[in-house]
């Protein structure tokens, strides 16, 4: 090897490369702090290899020593295993402070009645904070963040008008098992005249302007076997929770967007369209057969809904 070239000014060793007459590349050693950090990372890697799952072997891998994780099986048996994310999650859900705190509250709410929850500020606050997350995750996509729904598609939850019943038992049943909202399409059953008559009658039920003569004919169809509307909506048009049939006598429109229609003709068309096409709506199952929410979570949601509609009513 050739004798190292030295820079005459500093005496430092150079690589021998020279640019532009005097620009030289020095062969300085690496900065000490950098070098020791580099050695440090090597030592860290070796410690890591020993403690955590790391190196592949023939049909397995090194599992790591010294940081086992314990967790409980469903049967309550305590198990200990090498470090891994799945066991870590199980452990965190079973013994983590936030999880235990949450569980304590859930147990408390689960054991309480709705009246007790509403009367207890602590439980009410928990329902509010846990419920807002659950509602956002499970309900808001359809029923909207404020629970106001989308007319024609997803029912309003805060207007005191309930298709399937608004007491806590009915709401729980709805969440747990989902609902199939169904009204047959009358496109083939009714002639255009009959359709017009029934729609006029439906409008009169809630005091909307309508053609009185047509409505009188419509009433016969509604309450008779031609339409059979009364079977779900009752003869008075008050609806039936067991069928999810809407109350037609209140001024709340959940499917035909009568409120948005400005002229009597448009209102009539809106109602006619619903009778013509029928209704076929589905709310998913959130209980065990579907999204698998626990009974307590369903209770929290129901209590949260009560708070929501009470809040809106107060305004």
């Amino acid at each position, binding site marked *: 090897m050739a004798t190292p070239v030295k820079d005459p000014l500093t005496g430092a060793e150079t690589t021998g490369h020279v640019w532009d007459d005097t620009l030289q590349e020095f062969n300085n050693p690496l900065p000490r702090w950098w070098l020791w950090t580099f050695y440090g990372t090597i030592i860290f890697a070796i410690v890591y290899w020993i403690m955590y799952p790391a190196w*592949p072997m023939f049909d397995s891998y090194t599992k790591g020593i010294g940081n086992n994780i314990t967790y409980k099986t*469903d049967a309550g048996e305590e198990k200990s295993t090498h470090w891994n994310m799945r066991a870590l*999650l199980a452990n965190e859900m079973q013994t983590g402070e936030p999880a235990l705190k949450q569980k304590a509250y859930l147990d408390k709410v689960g054991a309480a009645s709705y009246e007790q929850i509403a009367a207890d500020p602590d439980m009410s606050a928990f329902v509010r904070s846990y419920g807002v997350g659950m509602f956002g995750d499970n309900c808001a996509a359809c029923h*909207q963040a404020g629970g106001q729904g989308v007319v024609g*598609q997803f029912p309003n939850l805060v207007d005191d008008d309930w298709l399937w019943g608004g007491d806590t038992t009915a709401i729980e049943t709805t969440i747990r098992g989902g609902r199939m909202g169904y009204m047959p399409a009358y496109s083939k059953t009714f002639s255009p005249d009959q359709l017009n008559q029934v729609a006029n009658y439906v409008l009169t039920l809630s005091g909307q302007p309508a053609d009185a003569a047509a409505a009188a004919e419509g009433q016969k169809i509604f309450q008779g076997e031609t339409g059979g509307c009364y079977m779900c909506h009752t003869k008075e048009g008050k609806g039936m929770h067991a069928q999810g049939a809407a109350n037609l006598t209140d001024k709340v429109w959940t499917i035909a967007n009568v409120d948005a229609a400005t002229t009597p003709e448009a209102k009539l068309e809106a109602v006619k369209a619903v009778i013509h096409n029928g209704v076929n709506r*589905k709310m998913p199952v959130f209980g065990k057969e579907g999204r698998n929410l626990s009974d307590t979570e369903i209770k929290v949601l129901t209590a949260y809904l009560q708070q929501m509609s009470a809040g809106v009513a107060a305004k």
Partner: protein
Amino acid sequence: MFKHESIETNSGLLIVLTLVAISIGGLVEIVPLHYINETVEDVKDPVTGVELVRPYTPLEQRGRDIYIREGCYTCHSQMIRPFRDEDLRYGHYSLAAESKFDHPFQWGSKRTGPDLARVGGKYSNEWQVAHLVAPRSVVPESIMPNYPWLLENNLQYADIKDRMIALKRVGVPYSLTKVEYESNVKRFGEDVAKKLDINTAENNLMAQAQKGNYDGNPNKLTEMDALVAYLQVLGTMVDFKKFDEDHFIQFR
């Protein structure tokens, strides 16, 4: 002494040593996954013994193709990680077994929209249709683009058999022969095995679309039918109520 100078001035040696250095990470991390049996979990129904994770039906597979065509994966991942926050929001963490028939898999690494690994059954078909056509009609704060053509385009499925044969070549157990069909009956049960038969793919696709009526229009087979059918099956194959968490931990 072997000086870095001798590597830096010899480009052939530099290339070889660079390749050696960068392939170590890949070899050590990826290769063992192919022969360590515990990588993909064993997910069999505890009662009947049939495998719970099955290949997609022809209709779902076409929906998956559309999912990829529209680039859904650029904003949506399909991978729930084993963290408490993800468990609470999305549900059970994803299993390796749940994407073993995915070619290519849709795990993703970027969430602009939410994770979709367990979106199946979370919303009704009507919601999915309304949301895909105009996301802001149901989620006002959404930044997702509109996909109205899904409801207008007829679903092209003339090449469904070729698509399934291509997947079969890379290891998805669709059946062509009687023997393969019988093997699927054993693995997945008869109902599922029928849907995985390439010979009856077109009929199966039509039957599922008609029965499911995913797009709300029974008279037309649209791309929406296929995409919603795919979305509704995501993450629903494994019923986690049937398993002790311990079962999945043992595979790690």
